[in-house]
C-alpha cells in the first residue's frame, strides 16, 4: 500500500515538473491553457501534498489568501522543511509599475496599484515614483523565478506624512497617515509561508522638529517634537520581534509566484522589492586587507569629531568646561521651517539624527557632572536612548561630516545600567553597510556609569572604518544578538506550555478539585507529553544560558528556573498536576513577562567620537566619568538648588503688558492627564500652538500659565479664593457637583460664550454621550477631554479551535458561555472593583440601555429604576453570576492572555495594554462591538432593517472627563475679558489639533500603552489606530450612552453595586426586592439633595422643585 502511494507521488512530481516546463510556455502564450488545466487535475486527483505541488506547477492558480499557519511552524521549521540549500546569486527586482492589487477572496488580480510621486521641495530625498500599497487590502506582485533557491527580500519604501489622494477602482480616495509604523502580513503564493511572517513591520523615520533650544525664562532646555519625515528607506524583510537577527530567507521554486502584502496598519509607498542575496559581513582581517588593497590611509594626528548623540545644543547650554563640545556653527545654521523663505531642508541639521521610533528622543541625565552638556539643576536633554531604546530593530542614525577621506576609529560614550549581568547588543553600520563581522553584534556591558566603547577585534585591535570626505552615516541598531535565539526557544516552549495548560484546563477547570482523580494520563496524554519535552528543552536552555553568560546571569533566570522546577514536579507524578495547576498558570504568566523583559535591550548614549586611531587610543580623550570630588560638588549643588528651583511651575510664564495669564491646573493623578510628563507636553503645546500665536477672536496673544498641583487641591483653593481659571481632567461627578454650588461656569451661555454651540453641540466634534454627563438643566459645565467605553475582546485562535463565532448579541453570549464552560473556560464582564465604587455601574447601564431603560426621569427629579426594563436588566446582570457563574473578581489582561477568558467585555483602553504587554498573543485577538439586544416591536416580533437583518442595539455606557472653568465675575469688563481668554484656551485645548497633537506626543513619550482616549471625534480619527479597529471603535461610539448626573448622583452607583453584591453573595436574596429596596434609598437621597439645592436647581432648570 505504501509503495503504491510512493509511486503515485513520484509520478505526480515528475508530471508536474514536466508540466511546469510546458506551462512556462503556456504563460507566455495564453492560448495553450489546456495543458495547465491537466496539471491541476493531476494534483487534485491524487489528493496528496497539494500545496507543494501547486508551487511546482508553473503557473499559479489564483485562490483565496489564507493566513492559516500553525504557531509551531516558525521560521526555523520553515527553513528545515525545505531540503534545498541553493542560494542563486541573481537579483529579481519587482518594480512599482508592476505592482497589483489582489482580491483577498479569489486571489485574482484586480488592477495595477496607483503610482504616486511624493515630492516635496523641503525633503532632501523625495521625488521618486512609488506604488501605493493601500492601508487596507492586499497588494503585491506576480513574477517569475528563473532559479530555484533561497532569496532575501529587500524592500524600498516611504511612509507618507499627511493626506494623500489616489485613484482606486476608478474612484478617487483619500488617506491620511497615522504616524505609526506600517505593518504587513506576507503571503507567498496565497499563503503565509511561516508563522513569523504573519506580521512584518516597516518603520517610519523620525527626527527632531528643531535643535535643542533654551527657554530664555527658565533656562531649561525645550524638548523638540518628534516629526516623521518622508525618507526612502531600504530594509530586508525580517523578524519584527528580533529573535532572528538575520534577515528572513524565502524559498522560491523555479516558476511563477505571487508575493503579496496584506495591510494591517498604514498605507505605504513602495519603490521596489528585490529578491537577492544579502552578503554576510566579512571578518575584520579581510576588511583590513581590502583597505590596504584600496590604499585607504589612516587619518593622522589630532582629528577628533564629537557628535552629541541626542542633538544640537545652544552654546549657552554648555558649561565653561564643556564648551569645547559645542558645535555653535551647526546650531546657528538652523532655521525654523516655519520661516519658509530661508528654510532649506538639505541644510537642516536636524536631519542629521534620524531614528526609527518617536520614543527615541533626547532625555536628561543628571547623575554625573561629566555628561555633556551639564547643568546641576536645569534641564539639559543630554543623552538619548536608555529604556526608550530597547525594542529590537530600533535604530538611530547620525550623519557626520568629515573633511578628509580615510580610516577613522569610532568610540561611543554609552551606558547600560538596567539589565544587571547582561550586556546589550547593537549592530553598527557605516554608510548603510555593516563594515565587518565584529560590529554586527557590538556588545555594551552592564555598568553604573558611562564608559567609552571603541569597537575592537577579539585581539583588542581597534577597528577602523572608512569614511568618505563629506557626509557619512553611522547607525546603531538594536539587535538581540545571541539572546534572540535563546528567547525564540523560550517563546516556543511557552506557547507549547500554554497549549498544554489549556488542554488540562479543559479537563480540570481553573481550580481543580484535589480530591478527584482526573486521569490526565488517559484524558490528555498529549499535554503530559508536552510537559515532558518542554522540561527537557527548558533545562537545556538554562544550561546554554549559563554557559553563554556566566554565573552572574543566574539572578535574571529565576522565572525560567521556577518553571523548570515546577515541570519537574509535575512530570514526576501526573496526579500532582491538579495540585500545582495554579502555580503552573502563574509560572506561565511569569515566563511570558520574563521573555518580554529579556528582549529589552536598553542603551543610553551621551556622545560619539569619530577620530584618528591615535587620538582614540591616546590619553587626550575626555574622561567619561567624573572623579569623586566632582561628583560630590555636583550633588551638593543640586541639593542646594532644590530649594530654589520651582519644579511644579511648568509654565514659567511672565505676564506681558500687564496681561494676567490664564491659569490652568492639572491635578496629579487626575484622569489620564495628571502626570509631570503630560503637563510638560501640555505646556509645550501651549507655547507652540496657542500662546505664540495671535488669537483670532480676541486679536491678542493669550498667555497661559500651567501648574501641576497635588490631587485634591482644587476644592480648598476654590474655597480660599486662589483657584485657577481652568482645571483639566475632572470627572462628570465633580463638574456637576461644583455647578450646584455655583463654583463653575455654565458654558452654554449665549452671552458669555456666543460660539458654545460650535463646540458643545457640534456632533462632529463630540458624541452626545460625551457632553451629556456635564449637562444639568439648561447648563453644560465642562468641555469633554476623554471618553471611554466597552468593547468585546476575543481570542481568534481559541474561538477557531472551538468552532465558535464572536458573539454579537446576548443570546449568542449565553450560547458561548455554555461552550466555553464545557471547556472550563469562561466569559467575563467588568465587575465592581473593591475600593473603586462605580466601576461596575457601567455594566449595569449597558444592559439597562439596551433594554430601553434609563437612569433618571426626564426632569431628573428621581430615578427611573423601578421600571420593568431596569428590573430586567438588574436580574440579568446578577444572573450572569448566580446562574452562569461568571468570575466576579478577575484580572482581565492576565486571563485573556492565558486563554482562560477567551471572550470578554472590557474598556477599549485594554487594546493598547494588550498590544504592548502581551506580545505573545499579538495577532491572535480582535475586538468588536459589545453584545447587543435584538430589537422587537410591541408584539415581540423582531424588527428588521432595510437589508433584512435584525436591528440590534449595541448601546453601552461611557465615562467622560473634561475641563471646567471656575466661576468668575462677569459683571466687569475686565472679568468678561478674563472669561473670554479662558474660553479661547478651552476651545483650543479640546479642539482637534491640540488633542491630536497631545495624543501623539504622549504616545511617543510613554509608548503605545499610553494611547490617549480623546473624546474629540475628529482627533480620534487621526490617532494611530489601524483601520479595522478604528471602524469598530467609531461604530461602538455611535451606540455609547452617558449616565446623567443629578444632585446626590454618587448614591446611585454605590447602591446599585450594593444591591448587586447583596444578590450575588446571598443565595437567598431576591433580585427584584433587593433592587427596589436599594433604589428607594437612592430616591431618598436625591430628594434630600434636591431640597438642599432647591434654589440652585430651579435656576439651572428653569422649573420649580416640588
Amino acid at each position, binding site marked *: 500500500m505504501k509503495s503504491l502511494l510512493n509511486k503515485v507521488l513520484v509520478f505526480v512530481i515528475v508530471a508536474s515538473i514536466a508540466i511546469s516546463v510546458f506551462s512556462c510556455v503556456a504563460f507566455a502564450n495564453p492560448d495553450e491553457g489546456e495543458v495547465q488545466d491537466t496539471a491541476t487535475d493531476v494534483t487534485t486527483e491524487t489528493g496528496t501534498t497539494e500545496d507543494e505541488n501547486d508551487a511546482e506547477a508553473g503557473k499559479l492558480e489564483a485562490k483565496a489568501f489564507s493566513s492559516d499557519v500553525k504557531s509551531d511552524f516558525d521560521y526555523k521549521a520553515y527553513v528545515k522543511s525545505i531540503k534545498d540549500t541553493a542560494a542563486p546569486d541573481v537579483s529579481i527586482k519587482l518594480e512599482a509599475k508592476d505592482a497589483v492589487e489582489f482580491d483577498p477572496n479569489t486571489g485574482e488580480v484586480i488592477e495595477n496599484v496607483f503610482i504616486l510621486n511624493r515630492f516635496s521641495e523641503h525633503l532632501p530625498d523625495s521625488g521618486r515614483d512609488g506604488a501605493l500599497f493601500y492601508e487596507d487590502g492586499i497588494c503585491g506582485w506576480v513574477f517569475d523565478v528563473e532559479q530555484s533557491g533561497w532569496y532575501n527580500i529587500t524592500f524600498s519604501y516611504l511612509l507618507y506624512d499627511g493626506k494623500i489622494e489616489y485613484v482606486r477602482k476608478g474612484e478617487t480616495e483619500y488617506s491620511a497617515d497615522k504616524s505609526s509604523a506600517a505593518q504587513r502580513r506576507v503571503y507567498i503564493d496565497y499563503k503565509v509561508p511561516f508563522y513569523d511572517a504573519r506580521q512584518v513591520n516597516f518603520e517610519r523615520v523620525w527626527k527632531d522638529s528643531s535643535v535643542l533650544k533654551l527657554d530664555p525664562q527658565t533656562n531649561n532646555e525645550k524638548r523638540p517634537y518628534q516629526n516623521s519625515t518622508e525618507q526612502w528607506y531600504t530594509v530586508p524583510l525580517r523578524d519584527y520581534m528580533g529573535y532572528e537577527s538575520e534577515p528572513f530567507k524565502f524559498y522560491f521554486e523555479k516558476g511563477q509566484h505571487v508575493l503579496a502584502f496584506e495591510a494591517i496598519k498604514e498605507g505605504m509607498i513602495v519603490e521596489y522589492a528585490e529578491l537577492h542575496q544579502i552578503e554576510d559581513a566579512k571578518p575584520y582581517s579581510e576588511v583590513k586587507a581590502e583597505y590596504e588593497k584600496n590604499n585607504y590611509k589612516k587619518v593622522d594626528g589630532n582629528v577628533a569629531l564629537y557628535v552629541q548623540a541626542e542633538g544640537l545644543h545652544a552654546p549657552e547650554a554648555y558649561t565653561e568646561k564643556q564648551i569645547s563640545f559645542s558645535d555653535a556653527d551647526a546650531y546657528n545654521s538652523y532655521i525654523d521651517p516655519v520661516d519658509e523663505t530661508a528654510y532649506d531642508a538639505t541644510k537642516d541639521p536636524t536631519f542629521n539624527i534620524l531614528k526609527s521610533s518617536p520614543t527615541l528622543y533626547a532625555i536628561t541625565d543628571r547623575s554625573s557632572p561629566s555628561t555633556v552638556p551639564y547643568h546641576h539643576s536645569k534641564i539639559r536633554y543630554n543623552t538619548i536612548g536608555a529604556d526608550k531604546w530597547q525594542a529590537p530593530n530600533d535604530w538611530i542614525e547620525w550623519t557626520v561630516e568629515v573633511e578628509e577621506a580615510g580610516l577613522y576609529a569610532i568610540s561611543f560614550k554609552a551606558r547600560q545600567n538596567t539589565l544587571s549581568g547582561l550586556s546589550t547588543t547593537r549592530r553598527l553600520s557605516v554608510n548603510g553597510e555593516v563594515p565587518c563581522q565584529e560590529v554586527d553584534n557590538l556588545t555594551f556591558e552592564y555598568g553604573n556609569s558611562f564608559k567609552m566603547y571603541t569597537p575592537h577585534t577579539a585581539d583588542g585591535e581597534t577597528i577602523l572604518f572608512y569614511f568618505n570626505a563629506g557626509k557619512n552615516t553611522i547607525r546603531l541598531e538594536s539587535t538581540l544578538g545571541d539572546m534572540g535565539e535563546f528567547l525564540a526557544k523560550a517563546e516556543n516552549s511557552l506557547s507549547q506550555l500554554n497549549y498544554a495548560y489549556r488542554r488540562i484546563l479543559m479537563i480540570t477547570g481553573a481550580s481543580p478539585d484535589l480530591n478527584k482523580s482526573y486521569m490526565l494520563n488517559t484524558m490528555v496524554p498529549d499535554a503530559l507529553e508536552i510537559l515532558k519535552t518542554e522540561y527537557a528543552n527548558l533545562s537545556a536552555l538554562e544550561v546554554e544560558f549559563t554557559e553563554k553568560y556566566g554565573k552572574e546571569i543566574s539572578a535574571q533566570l529565576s522565572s525560567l528556573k521556577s518553571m523548570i522546577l515546577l515541570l519537574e514536579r509535575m512530570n514526576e507524578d501526573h496526579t500532582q498536576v491538579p495540585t500545582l495547576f495554579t502555580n503552573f498558570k502563574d509560572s506561565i504568566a511569569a515566563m511570558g513577562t520574563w521573555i518580554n523583559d529579556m528582549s529589552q535591550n536598553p542603551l543610553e548614549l551621551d556622545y560619539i567620537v569619530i577620530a584618528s586611531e591615535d587620538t582614540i587610543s591616546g590619553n587626550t580623550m575626555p574622561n567619561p566619568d567624573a572623579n569623586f570630588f566632582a561628583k560630590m560638588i555636583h550633588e551638593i549643588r543640586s541639593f542646594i538648588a532644590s530649594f530654589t528651583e520651582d519644579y511644579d511651575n511648568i509654565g514659567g510664564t511672565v505676564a506681558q503688558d500687564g496681561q494676567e495669564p490664564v491659569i490652568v491646573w492639572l491635578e496629579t493623578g487626575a484622569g489620564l492627564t495628571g502626570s509631570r510628563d503630560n503637563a510638560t507636553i501640555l505646556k509645550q503645546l501651549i507655547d507652540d500652538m496657542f500662546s505664540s500665536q495671535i488669537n483670532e477672536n480676541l486679536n491678542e496673544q493669550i498667555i497661559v500659565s500651567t501648574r501641576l498641583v497635588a490631587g485634591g487641591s482644587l476644592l480648598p483653593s476654590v474655597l480660599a479664593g486662589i483657584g485657577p481659571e481652568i482645571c483639566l481632567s475632572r470627572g462628570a461627578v465633580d463638574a456637576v457637583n461644583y455647578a450646584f*454650588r455655583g463654583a463653575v461656569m455654565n458654558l452654554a451661555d449665549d452671552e458669555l460664550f456666543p460660539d458654545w454651540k460650535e463646540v458643545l453641540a457640534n456632533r462632529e466634534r463630540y458624541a452626545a454621550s460625551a457632553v451629556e454627563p456635564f449637562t444639568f438643566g439648561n447648563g453644560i459645565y465642562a468641555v469633554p477631554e476623554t471618553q471611554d467605553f466597552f468593547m468585546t475582546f476575543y481570542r481568534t485562535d481559541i474561538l477557531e479551535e472551538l468552532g465558535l463565532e464572536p458573539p454579537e448579541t446576548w443570546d449568542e453570549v449565553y450560547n458561548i458561555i455554555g461552550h466555553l464552560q464545557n471547556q472550563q473556560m469562561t466569559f467575563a464582564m467588568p465587575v465592581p472593583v473593591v475600593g473603586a*465604587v462605580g466601576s461596575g455601574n457601567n455594566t449595569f447601564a449597558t444592559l439597562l440601555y439596551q433594554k430601553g431603560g434609563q437612569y433618571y426621569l426626564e426632569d431628573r427629579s428621581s430615578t427611573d429604576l423601578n421600571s420593568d426594563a431596569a428590573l430586567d436588566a438588574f436580574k440579568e446582570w446578577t444572573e450572569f453570576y448566580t446562574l452562569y457563574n461568571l468570575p466576579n473578581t478577575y484580572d482581565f489582561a492576565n486571563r485573556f492572555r492565558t486563554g482562560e477568558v477567551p471572550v470578554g467585555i472590557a474598556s477599549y483602553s485594554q487594546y493598547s495594554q494588550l498590544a504592548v504587554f502581551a506580545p505573545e498573543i499579538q495577532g491572535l485577538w480582535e475586538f468588536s462591538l459589545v453584545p447587543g439586544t435584538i430589537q422587537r416591536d410591541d408584539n415581540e416580533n423582531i424588527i428588521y432593517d432595510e437589508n433584512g437583518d435584525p436591528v440590534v442595539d449595541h448601546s453601552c455606557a461611557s465615562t467622560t472627563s473634561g475641563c471646567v472653568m471656575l466661576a468668575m465675575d462677569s459683571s466687569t469688563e475686565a472679568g468678561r475679558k478674563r472669561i473670554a481668554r479662558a474660553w479661547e484656551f478651552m476651545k483650543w485645548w479640546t479642539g482637534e489639533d491640540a488633542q491630536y497633537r497631545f495624543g501623539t506626543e504622549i504616545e511617543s513619550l510613554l509608548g503605545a500603552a499610553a494611547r490617549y482616549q480623546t473624546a474629540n471625534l475628529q482627533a480620534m480619527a487621526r490617532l494611530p489606530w489601524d483601520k479595522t479597529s478604528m471602524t469598530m471603535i467609531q461604530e461602538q461610539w455611535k451606540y455609547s450612552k452617558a449616565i446623567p448626573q443629578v444632585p446626590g448622583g454618587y448614591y446611585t452607583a454605590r447602591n446599585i453595586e450594593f444591591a448587586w453584591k447583596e444578590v450575588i453573595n446571598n443565595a437567598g436574596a431576591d433580585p427584584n426586592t433587593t433592587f427596589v429596596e436599594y433604589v428607594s434609598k437612592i430616591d431618598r437621597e436625591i430628594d434630600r439633595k434636591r431640597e438642599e439645592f432647591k434654589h440652585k436647581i430651579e435656576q439651572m432648570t428653569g422649573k420649580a422643585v416640588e
Partner: protein
Amino acid sequence: MANSEAKAKNKAFFKDWLKYQFKEMRKNGSLYLFMLPYLIVFATFTILPVIVAMYFSFTYFNVLEPPQWTGFDNYVRLFTADDLFMTAFKNTLFFAVVIGPGGYLMSLFFAWLINELGRRTRAVMTLFYYAPSLASVYPVWKIIFSSDQYGLLNGFLMNTGITLTNIKWLENVDYIVPCCLIVILWSSLGTSFLTFIAGLQNVDRTLYEAGAIDGVKNRWQELWYITLPYMKPQLMFGAVMSISGAFSVGGAITSLVGYPSQDYVAHTLIHHLEDYANQRMELGYACAIAVLLFLLQIVANKVIAKMLSKVGE
C-alpha cells in the same frame, strides 16, 4: 446687698489670682519661652481647628459657598433623620470596645513578654512587633484576603480542601468586620507598645527585691503591685493613644475593603464624616459628626483615667 458684696469679693479674689499668675509666669518666663513654639503650633493646628469645627457644626456649609447659620439643625438631623449615622455610631463603638482595650492589653502583654528577653533579642523583637505600625501594611493583607482563588488565604483553604470555592473575604458582609478586626489588632502594637517597653525598663529593680521580702508570692502579684503602679504615666499615655486610635479607625478599613464597605458593615464615624465632607460636600454636617466624635473620645478618656487609678489597689 450680700450678693453685691460677694460679687466684689469674688472680683477681688479673681484679681489677686490673676496677679499671682502673672507674677509666676514672669518668674518662669524662660520656661514659657521654651514652650512657645509648641504652644503656637498646637494652638494653630489643634485648638483653633477644634473651635472652627464647632462653629461650622452649627452651620450649613457646602464648601464652595459661605456658611449659613442653622443652629442645632445638623445635630437634630444626625440623631433623627440619619439612619446611617446610627450604623456608623454602632460600628465605631464596637471597634472601639474591641480594639481599644484589645490593642491596649495586647501591647501590654507583648511588652511584658518581650521585656523578659535578653537585650539583643529584645531589640530585634521590638522592631518586629513595632514595624507594622511604621509602614502601610494593608496591601499585604489584601493579598492574604484577596477574593479570587489566587488569594493566599483562599488558596490555602482550597488547597487543603477546607473550602471548595473562593470566599470573598473583603466583600461578603459576614467576613468584612472580622477581617478588619484581625488586621487592625495586629497593627495596633504601636506607640503605646513602645512606651510600655520603656516603662518596664524604668522600673526600679530594688523594688522587686523589697517586694519579695514583703511577701510577693508570684509574678502576677509582682506585676500588679509593683510593675504596673510604677509605670502609671506610661499606662495613661498608652490609654489615651489607644482610645483616640480606636475611635478614629477608618483608614485601615478603607484600604482593606474600600469605601464605602459593602452595605456599610464596616462604616465608622470617620467614614461617615469623610462621606459627608468629600462626597456630599456638606461640611457643616461633617463637622457636627467630628464634634460628636471628639466628645466621645473625651468621655472615654475620663472613664479610662478612672479605671487606671485603680491599678495596684
